[in-house]
């Protein structure tokens, strides 16, 4: 009984992080047709922010606050230097951002070396739930993740910014002729996606080993979640992330990490082939 409860909680926290990563990916793709292969590295940079903060003697929470600011700033730089030259050239964005991910990864290797670092959990201790105990920090992580996801959903589905953003996603030319600065929307969306990834990386850092190649392990499941759930609606990301995350985590426990990945991948491929636009539909109703 205890094992199942812990399994469910761990799976939930994995799903939530996956959804956070995937949300950042999908808004950038939906907005300007850019597939950001460096998104995992933005996540990694967020984790390294708290690592560095810890090494400088700063409290964890300060590092966690700095992470979205720093990674958001990096996002702004990236958008200005690279992304704006390749809007809507989807295939080219894969290659170009791939190059970017190499650059970011290597930059971190150069600064901090290839080996992994760890971040001490800021709030140690566990909480008693029924007749088992669960780490407080993990619960806190899940709470923050839920709030962030809710915040993103509110931002894109309820706020004025979100209305403008969705208008630009649906009909960019028409939106521009209504006076909406599409370039600014692209820029802001990219920065938001980056900051989100950065923050996600920061809060996950205490629970994993932080090394320069950690990004890919989140990028690929993130992509698969989007492909399974559909890139057209944010609800697709929730569904896809839920399915992929749950399957991956559960199979990892029941089988093995490698078999779990293979199984998840096969399942995802089958779903994608059956419903090419994902379960909830693709971009712009494709």
């Amino acid at each position, binding site marked *: 009984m205890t094992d199942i409860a812990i399994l469910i909680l761990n799976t939930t926290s994995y799903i939530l992080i996956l959804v956070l990563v995937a949300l950042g990916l999908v808004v950038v793709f939906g907005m300007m047709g850019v597939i950001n292969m460096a998104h995992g590295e933005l996540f990694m940079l967020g984790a390294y922010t708290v690592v560095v903060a810890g090494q400088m003697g700063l409290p964890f929470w300060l590092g966690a606050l700095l992470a979205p600011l720093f990674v958001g700033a990096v996002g702004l730089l990236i958008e200005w230097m690279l992304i704006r030259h390749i809007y809507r050239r989807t295939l080219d964005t894969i290659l170009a951002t*791939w190059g970017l991910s190499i*650059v970011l990864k290597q930059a971190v290797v150069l600064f901090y070396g290839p080996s992994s670092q760890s971040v001490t959990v800021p709030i140690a201790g566990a909480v008693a739930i029924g007749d088992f105990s669960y780490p407080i920090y993990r619960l806190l992580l899940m709470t923050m993740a839920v709030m962030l996801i809710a915040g993103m959903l509110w931002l894109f589905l309820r706020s004025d910014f979100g209305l403008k953003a969705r208008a630009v996603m649906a009909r960019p030319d028409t939106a521009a002729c209504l006076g909406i600065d599409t370039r600014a929307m692209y820029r802001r969306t990219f920065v938001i996606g980056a900051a989100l990834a950065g923050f996600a990386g920061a809060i996950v850092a205490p629970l994993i080993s932080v090394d320069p190649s950690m990004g890919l392990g989140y990028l690929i499941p993130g992509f698969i979640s989007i492909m399974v759930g559909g890139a057209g609606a944010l609800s697709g990301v929730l569904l896809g992330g839920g399915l992929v995350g749950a399957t991956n985590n559960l199979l990892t426990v029941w089988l093995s990490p490698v078999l779990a990945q293979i199984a998840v*991948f096969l399942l995802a491929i089958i779903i994608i082939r059956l419903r090419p636009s994902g379960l909830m539909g693709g971009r712009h109703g494709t």
Partner: protein
Amino acid sequence: MAPRPLAALTFVILLLVPLIAQDYWVDQLTRYVLFGLFAMSLSLVWGRGGMLCFGQAMFFGGGGYIMATVTLGMWGEGLTDSLLGLMIALICAAAFAALLGYFLFWGKGLSGAYLAVVTLAIAYVLEQAVKSWYALGGDNGISGVPPITFAGFEFWQTSPRYYLILGVCIVVYALLDRLVRSPFGVMLTGVRTNPDRAMYLGFNVFTIRVTAFVIGAVIAALSGALFVAVDEFASPTLIGFALSTEVLIWVALGGREMPLAAFVAAILIRIVETYLSELFGAYWILALGGLLMVSVVMLPKGLLATPFALFQSRRKLNQQ
């Protein structure tokens, strides 16, 4: 396709290398030339076929592991002949590629971005799988792979081996050249540039794609099989994610639509890498990433293919 004189020049230069270089460099070049062959396979599949495959190394490494296991007698005591190993590797690669191609491209096939991400996932997962496969030596791979034996000769000496490998490359390049210029090549280009129109014109887009994919896989497997026989070692890095993306970089930087450019780019980049690796190490990889970004934005046809193509237009103008 690169102008034939340019290709001839390239291969002549390569043929002359052993006359001026030390054995160590010829040995290295043997390996790089095989990487070049590998790059050509991706150039066919991606550059000419329009299928961005992030996992091309699965065929390279796959061919390598099959060659290794066959020639070491793991498939059967007496079945250790090099040629047999090669044939089995190529057949297996073709079969697997056909199966995979069928799955990827059938019906409203995966294309573009989706294909890239899916093949990326395949490469990632495959690497994990091979690493944990005990029979294949896990992380450590398989060592002691016997050298190529052909027509009674064992090719372990530097120069003969180099010429054999180079010979294979020249033959494959010539065949590829004919393929690209053939009606199939034209259809492939049509499918790449406008799949819908190709379909309306009656071309079987699916068959054309799978065919190109399989041919690419076979070439990749050939280069991988020869590689392990040269290196006498098969390791997970040959099937892995890193090599898949490296070959992508070679082809992207060289010029995806021009197999010769991809071939030369792979060789040049590997030469520079080895030469500079002590000096620059991580900076080199960073520079490669940066070059990739720049090349996509400013020279999408490729850093080598763009000037190479100028030769072509100039020649044509001169002929008028």
